[in-house]
């Protein structure tokens, strides 16, 4: 059995669990049905947990923002564009903050992921040192959002990145703007960077 087959199966499980999470926060089921679902969920957990190991994990699929194998991720699919990265995703009821709107903290999670990916484009994975966000308007649920970022400055081990979240249907309109500083750990910098 190939790794590709197992990765496809993990992506399938991630997709199924995203659907289950969405149903669990929107269901109008009565308590007895919820308890039956909980029992069935625990049975599935036991089956998956019976095969646990330090090896054989598909960590590459489990990023909480972009990982197809992680039920927490929408997931966001990122692609490179000139000078940066961009992705698109819609967020359902499970990601709600104020009634009807995306949780403000989700914007921080999304921006950290996308700014960090943009900072890593030249090939130097760094760690977030600072992230700041300005919220212009709330971001709607169940609406395609465009999330993009680009490097604005590189100075030694420090990379400054800017990005925004906006409606996919209205390019150029920013609901949330973010700016972050990524720092390449010294050990990497010494080896990889001039």
């Amino acid at each position: 059995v190939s790794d590709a087959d197992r990765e496809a199966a993990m992506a399938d499980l991630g997709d199924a669990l995203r659907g289950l999470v969405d149903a669990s926060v929107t269901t109008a089921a009565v308590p007895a049905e919820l308890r039956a679902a909980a029992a069935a969920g625990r049975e599935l957990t036991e089956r998956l947990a019976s095969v646990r190991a330090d090896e054989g994990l598909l960590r590459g699929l489990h990023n909480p923002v972009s990982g197809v194998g992680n039920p927490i991720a929408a997931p966001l699919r990122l692609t490179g564009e000139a000078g940066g990265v961009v992705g698109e995703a819609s967020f359902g009821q499970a990601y709600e903050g104020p009634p009807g709107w995306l949780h403000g903290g989700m914007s921080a999670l999304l921006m950290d992921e996308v700014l960090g990916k943009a900072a890593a484009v030249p090939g130097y994975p760094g760690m977030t040192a600072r992230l700041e966000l300005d919220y212009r308007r709330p971001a709607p649920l169940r609406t395609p959002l465009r999330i993009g970022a680009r490097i604005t400055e590189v100075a030694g081990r420090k990379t400054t990145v800017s990005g925004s979240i906006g409606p996919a249907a209205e390019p150029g309109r920013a609901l949330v703007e973010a700016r972050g500083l990524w720092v390449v750990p010294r050990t990497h910098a010494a080896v990889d960077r001039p």
Partner: protein
Amino acid sequence: VAPDPNGVHADAPPYDPDLMAAVAELGDALRGLVDASVRTAAPAAELRAAAAGARELTGRLAAARRPAGHLSPLDDVLAFRQVFNMVSGVGSALAPPVDVRVVEGGVVAETTFGLAYEGPPGYLHGGMSGLVMDQVLGAAAIHAGLWGMTARLELDYRGPVPLDTPVVLTGRVTETAGRKTVVSGTIAAAARPDQPLVEARGVFVTPRAEVIDSYFSGVTDGSGRHTAPGRPTDATAPRPAADA
């Protein structure tokens, strides 16, 4: 475990305790399932069988759904009770969950982040720190009677936050002026609460009445009545102890 779905307003209105317990039980079961799904070393066939089992379960739960904009009967917008909140909700499979408690001068929360929240190997995703601090800082503003929507959030990362390790989160209001509230907070290992790994600062702004109307015009509570968040007023303020 008695669910504490709110943790912000001790005097929130009552709810159906049986439904609350069932929602919390399902949330707990699905949190376990999410965690198992990212830790499993099961072969492809077993993963596909689990996916099929999950889809069957989804079909059962989705047979009756709340329409968008119609809050759960367990939620209370004025008391900020949100059982499916993705950070603090007992019913959310996405939430760690973070149990926010009111203390002298602000709020405190303890939680442990599992592998599903991983960024750099072994450590919390940097953006997760932003997600949970937005919630904790916002809860500190709410506790002070100063609900607002996030206008600005700043995070300084001093050190990586370890996974599978108890952490403590704090938030306290540092400044208030009109509709604007400034809140500061930290994330630290529970074993070393005085050494912040992440420092956060948030600015929350209470929208003007007409803006609240435009943002929340379609929201109804469990009984179908229109409802919207806001700062406490005479009508919505927590009742004095003598009335309770």
